[in-house]
């Protein structure tokens, strides 16, 4: 039996399409973008400098902090989707779970008579539980009412969003503020800022810890193994004795729980109240879904993809401000980059004989 030479394996993994494809994609997108800007009479070099500055620079790295702050909910939501997707469960209900998590945490923070030190953890836990329960509902519909998970999770987004909208527009509204939002939560419940004067709060560290924990669990634990095998071939997992029903409920609860927690952390860390549309407007859930899909539901991959999406977004603002590239154009460029990454470099890298792709599809039955 031929042993794998270590060096060859390392080199192989560095040049593997999984790593090179995104790099090609980004380069390709930058090139296309440059053409686009030349065609519309902008200086691509200046624009890209402004973009880089806008994403990573700024006075005292303020823009970098903005990118990290933006990445926090995106990575968090990406992780939420990824943990379920790893087992083959596509959770399209991240948005509803996120909103209900945020709402639940605001309610606990505002209306429970708990002592101050207990209020913060209680609010966070309430957020996670609300999100988890909402995801479990979809899992139950799938199991007992034959509503496919895909549809159940997607449809449950609407009641969650409108329920939250109704509550903050009517019974719970902070009328004095004149906006569709709740009252401000007590100061004791606010998540501490990591750096004063920025929006970056301690939730970023919590998300990072969750990513690392998830990566370890998926790769190194028994339940992670069972999750991976179920995702790759559920019949095989079942045949091997994995209780795929229980595993499915567990994965969905965890997925929804993380989404709910992300909502709670945005409410307690960024806005300090529940504001209508503040969690849905920036499309955190959908950007996170995209990150999870691109990363093939690997937690570390989600971290990379989420950071990248956040950087492209804040960089886009920088380009508007610094190089007068109109907002529309910067949006087109962002979309191009994401599209090219989604194609995983297939559009640009020459086909290596197409052999592995063909082989992968072969054993269909």
């Amino acid at each position: 039996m031929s042993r794998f030479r270590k060096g060859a394996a390392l080199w192989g993994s560095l040049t593997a399409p999984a790593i090179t494809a995104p790099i090609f994609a980004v380069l390709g997108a930058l090139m296309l973008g440059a053409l686009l800007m030349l065609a519309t009479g902008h200086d691509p070099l200046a624009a890209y400098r402004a973009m880089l500055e806008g994403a990573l620079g700024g006075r005292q790295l303020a823009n970098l902090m903005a990118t990290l702050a933006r990445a926090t909910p995106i990575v968090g939501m990406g992780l939420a989707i990824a943990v379920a997707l790893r087992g083959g469960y596509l959770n399209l209900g991240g948005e509803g779970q996120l909103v209900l998590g945020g709402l639940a945490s605001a309610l606990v923070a505002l209306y429970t008579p708990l002592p101050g030190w207990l209020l913060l953890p209680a609010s966070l836990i309430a957020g996670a539980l609300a999100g988890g329960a909402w995801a479990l509902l979809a899992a139950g519909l799938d199991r007992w009412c034959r509503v496919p998970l895909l549809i159940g999770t997607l449809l449950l987004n609407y009641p969650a969003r409108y329920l939250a909208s109704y509550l903050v527009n009517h019974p719970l509204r902070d009328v004095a503020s004149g906006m569709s939002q709740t009252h401000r939560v007590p100061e004791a419940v606010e998540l501490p800022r990591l750096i004063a004067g920025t929006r970056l709060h301690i939730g970023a560290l919590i998300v990072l810890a969750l990513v690392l924990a998830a990566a370890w669990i998926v790769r190194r634990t028994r339940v992670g193994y069972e999750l991976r095998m179920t995702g790759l071939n559920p019949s095989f997992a079942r045949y091997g004795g994995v209780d795929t029903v229980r595993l499915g409920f567990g994965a969905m609860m965890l997925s929804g729980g993380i989404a709910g927690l992300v909502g709670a952390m945005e409410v307690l860390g960024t806005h300090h109240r529940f504001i209508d549309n503040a969690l849905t407007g920036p499309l955190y859930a959908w950007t996170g879904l995209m990150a999870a899909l691109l990363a093939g539901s690997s937690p570390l991959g989600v971290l990379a993809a989420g950071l990248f999406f956040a950087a492209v977004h804040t960089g886009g603002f920088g380009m508007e401000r610094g190089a007068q590239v109109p907002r529309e154009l910067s949006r087109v460029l962002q979309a191009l980059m994401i599209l090219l990454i989604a194609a995983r470099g297939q559009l640009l890298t020459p086909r290596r004989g197409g052999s592995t792709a063909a082989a992968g599809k072969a054993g269909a039955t």
Partner: protein
Amino acid sequence: MTAATAVTAGAAATSSVSPALELRGIVKRFPGVLANDHIDLSVERGEIRALLGENGAGKTTLMRVLYGLYPPDAGEIQLAGQTQHFRSPTDAIEAGLGMVHQHFMLFPSLTVAENIVYGREPRRWGFIDRRTAARQVAALAERYGLEVDPGARVADLSVGLRQRVEILKTLYRDAQVLILDEPTAVLTPQERQGLFRVLRELAGQGKTVIFITHKLQEVMEIADRATVLRNGRVEATVRIADSSPTELCRYMVGRDVLPDPIRTPKSAGDPVLTVADLVVLDNAGRRVVDGVSFEVRAGEIVGLAGVAGNGQSELVAAIAGLRSATAGRVMLSQQDANTTSIAARRRAGLAYIPEDRNRVGLALAASVADNLIMADQRNSSRTPRLSKRGVLSRAGIERYATDLIERFDIKVASTREAVGNLSGGNRQKVVAARELAQEPIVLIAEQPTQGVDVGAAESIHRDLLAVRDAGRAVLLSSAESSEILSLCDRILVMFEGRIVGELSAEAVGADPAAEATLGLLAAGGAT
């Protein structure tokens, strides 16, 4: 000499006319493996050529190159003297090639008829004419003696039936050069005879057949010449008339293969698997297992014989817990197992080599190591330890996997290679290794040697006997009647969902026509 014989003689002998098919210097590399190393192969019109070689020798790869599925790294393909550059199977089909794939290429959600006519559908006013399609397929099946239900969904079919569909699909397309990659892996002797009749007929019409198999008797029976591959190279090409199974074997493995082990008589112990009045419905609601009762006792190998599609697959799936029974009971070591989960059955000592290795027995995208530890990931008593308090032990898994790979002689580049990259026989060895390593009390072995080479089949037979001799039990379901006859203490024959006969080893040993009796029973004849 008449004109007709002159033509056949001219076709079979090497002549100035270009051969029907010629491969020159074909090279195909995979990361870490040189699967085809400058292979030359030339096949005449009207010839049936056997392609032989151990598991992983490169047979399937060579045929996939020929069929346009893999571009060769070097080399040339000629059909009737014309150089071809196939960029996809569509090009190959266009040029008159047809292939029965070892790893079936069927659409599980479509019907049998839809799969067979796919790409060449009969049309009526521009729409696919389903009725004609079903009729054509039924006629084709009838003509070649390969019975199928044209309206059944492929996903609901057993592996044996899917193999028939693959064969019919290729016959439907009326190819000039037919490639059959282990078409007989799970066919019964009767079905095989039907197929051979077809192949002879096609060769008689001047078509060319390339036939991959591990069963040397089949080669002796059907082939004109045989080409043996070894480690990606052509070892020899011989005329069958001048050769023998022993010689072929020597070319394949480089040594003489041990004869199949002898089963020593042994008295059986207590029943460890009891099946009582079991009824199982198929996905269409038919009673495919119709009140079956039997026992398997410790120290016994009980065979389950029959033509594919007579309920064996469903019976076995119900015992393993993958399918639920509508009535009746399954007991393991005299404990009721009906209501228990698959995990509980496995804890009670059940192991299962399923017939469908690709869809049930393996996760093709997962690594060899991940596939080898399934069902054992929770077992904390085994050494080396695979997991500890819920955390996988990487060193233990690596050691365990390496050990099994060596013991079962599985050809892999590393324990981390995806199982989907392995050759068919090596995939089968992964499944067999995993289940045999469980040291089961009851082992259900369903087509356990399908696709493995003669050496590996012999070694798996030895392992099955070892399970029995260690005082445990085996239920062996196989289309291969020689396997059943040589290994089993008792043989149950299934026909249309019922057990229609039971033969004991003694009776079989005394009866030179045992195989024929078995065939008769399986076809529904009376005892």
